[in-house]
């Protein structure tokens, strides 16, 4: 399998994305000199592998379907936002709103993720090897967020049915988010997510605590006004 190399020092992001969208039969791509540009590899819709050597800006791999995207560097705001399927892996840190509203696929952050990681997530699996910032998993609807480090303030505020696993400390829990018992079925689920992220056996699932929705705000009621 040949690798098609696109150098963003000499090509535009439009040329890169246009090629990625048009040539769905080509399955291996390498992107050089991303230099923090935005929307790199956005809108992929093929089971290709895209390796990006360097830092990326906003919305890298946005709305990804099927593709596997590896970023050797750090990522800006909205990494893999609204991803539908596939895999996005960043070796460094991710800025705010990583995995925002994503419906599916796997997002792996080797470093830390900033505020609002997994905001409004709708089915994606997110694994962060470092820590996550405040207001993460805000209004998280479905999927899993696994954090090997710590979580910031207001974790899971107004959460729906997403499942949160945190190994370290939690700054505080947001409205309607509570700690829940980590039973065997949850450990099995967590192990599967860690395994998918290449962490099987690297960490003990028993070290994690589980958080989710108390479901007390599912129906608006005046008595709950103080919770909002």
């Amino acid at each position, binding site marked *: 399998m040949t690798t098609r190399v696109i150098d963003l020092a000499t090509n535009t*992001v*439009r040329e890169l*994305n*246009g090629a990625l*969208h048009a040539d769905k039969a080509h399955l291996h791509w390498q992107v050089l000199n991303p230099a923090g540009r*935005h*929307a790199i590899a*956005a*809108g992929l*819709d093929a089971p290709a592998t895209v390796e990006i050597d360097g830092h990326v*800006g*906003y*919305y890298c791999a*946005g*709305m990804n*379907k099927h593709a596997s995207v590896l970023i050797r560097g750090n990522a800006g*705001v*909205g990494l893999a*936002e*609204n991803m*539908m399927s596939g895999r996005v892996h960043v070796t460094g840190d991710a800025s*705010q*709103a990583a995995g*925002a*509203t994503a*419906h599916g696929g796997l997002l792996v952050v080797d470093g830390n993720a900033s505020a*609002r990681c997994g*905001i*409004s997530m*709708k*089915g994606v699996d997110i694994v962060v090897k470092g820590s996550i910032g405040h207001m993460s998993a*805000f*209004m998280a*609807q*479905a999927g899993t967020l696994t954090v090997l480090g710590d979580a910031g303030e207001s974790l899971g505020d*107004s959460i*729906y*049915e997403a499942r949160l696993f945190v190994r370290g400390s939690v700054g505080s829990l947001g409205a309607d988010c509570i700690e829940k018992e980590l039973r065997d079925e949850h450990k099995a689920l967590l192990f599967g997510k860690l395994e998918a992220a290449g962490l099987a056996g690297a960490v003990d699932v028993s070290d994690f605590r589980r958080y989710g929705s108390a479901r007390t705000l*599912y*129906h*608006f009621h*005046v008595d709950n006004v103080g919770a909002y």
Partner: protein
Amino acid sequence: MSEYHNPVTTPRTSATFDDYTLSEIRRAAATGIYDIRGGGSKRKLPHLDDLLFLGASISRYPLEGYREKCGTNVVLGSRFARKPIELKIPVTIAGMSFGSLSAQAKEALGRGASAMGTSTTTGDGGMTPEERGHSSILVYQYLPSRYGMNPDDLRKADAIEVVIGQGAKPGGGGMLLGQKISKRVAGMRCLPEGIDQRSACRHPDWTGPDDLEIKIEELREITDWEKPIYVKVGAARPYYDTALAVKSGADVIVLDGMQGGTAATQEVFIEHVGIPLLSAIRPAVQALQDLGMHRKVQLIVSGGIRNGADVAKCLALGADVASIGTAALVALGDNDPSLEAEYNKLGTTAGAYDDWHEGRDPAGITTQDPALAARLDPVLAGRRLANYLAVMTLEAQTIARACGKSHVHNLEPEDLVALTVEAAAMARVPLAGTDWIPGRGSY
């Protein structure tokens, strides 16, 4: 000598504490919760009725009403999109979601709009296959909740509308109550059936105009720069919002006045936040003109548009298209007097029914109840909407010809005068019979 009696004065109710206000105080005192309803502002506001066209005279030459051509088409998205869209008429259908509306109502909107060569718009909750199938031109809304958002539908759309706010509630999100969350609606939104579904007021992955510019760039990249990208704002700071939307790279600005409807929000929000459409159009047009983008970035306006005169007035003030929501629902059959007995059972009357969030609409429009929704015949309702759109267009053409214009977009502020000082100031046209525009120099 007869006994003296003090004269009795006629009982007088308060203009400040009128019947509605008193009933609302009692309702609030009994329940402890604010009132939620659908629709837009109901109180009397400065509006397009406060403007008049001057028509032709000795110094202006009219066009023959039934013979000479008066164009109505408009192209949207010519700034950046590789595939701009063309509407045959200067009226379009505003965003309304499947969820707030029944599938039959959405289909009817698509049928009616398509018959007249204009577009419909999705809403919160995503795009349904029926809606796509029945709408020849479909605008896909990109909302803070991102319910149902996916790249496949994004590519199927003819245009993308980034929603920042709406006229009924600038700065507010939404709440679709559990009564309307059917299995299908819940599935499209990735949430459990029957729970109240909050729609966020802020986008989850960007804040401010600098981020918006990058977000628009991403949407263009995902769709290979094909689609026109609209930015919709509720009328609040129209000059600056328009300027910032242009700066962010929008092809089209959608400006929604406070008369614009909503599926559900607080009464206090609807009536007390935002500004009337009449006051919003000229500042938005001014921003476009100041940037040299008038007619290059198109302006769609909405909020209380009811007839062809309203459309013509909006165009004369500088808009490119007028958009309707509430009026379109009425054309489908909403609040029809033939359903009076059923409205009475709901504690209201035809013409006043606005508890759209409760999902008990006897007209089958603002409901997810299968039995109620089945009452609406989408073919017949679509035909009514097409008729209504045709009338609006003919009315706008009639006025344009009377003003000597060969295209409705040739209407201009000079064709208008105002009936009130307030309207003259807001619309920046002279008070009728004078050349006085308040705030624009002395009389």
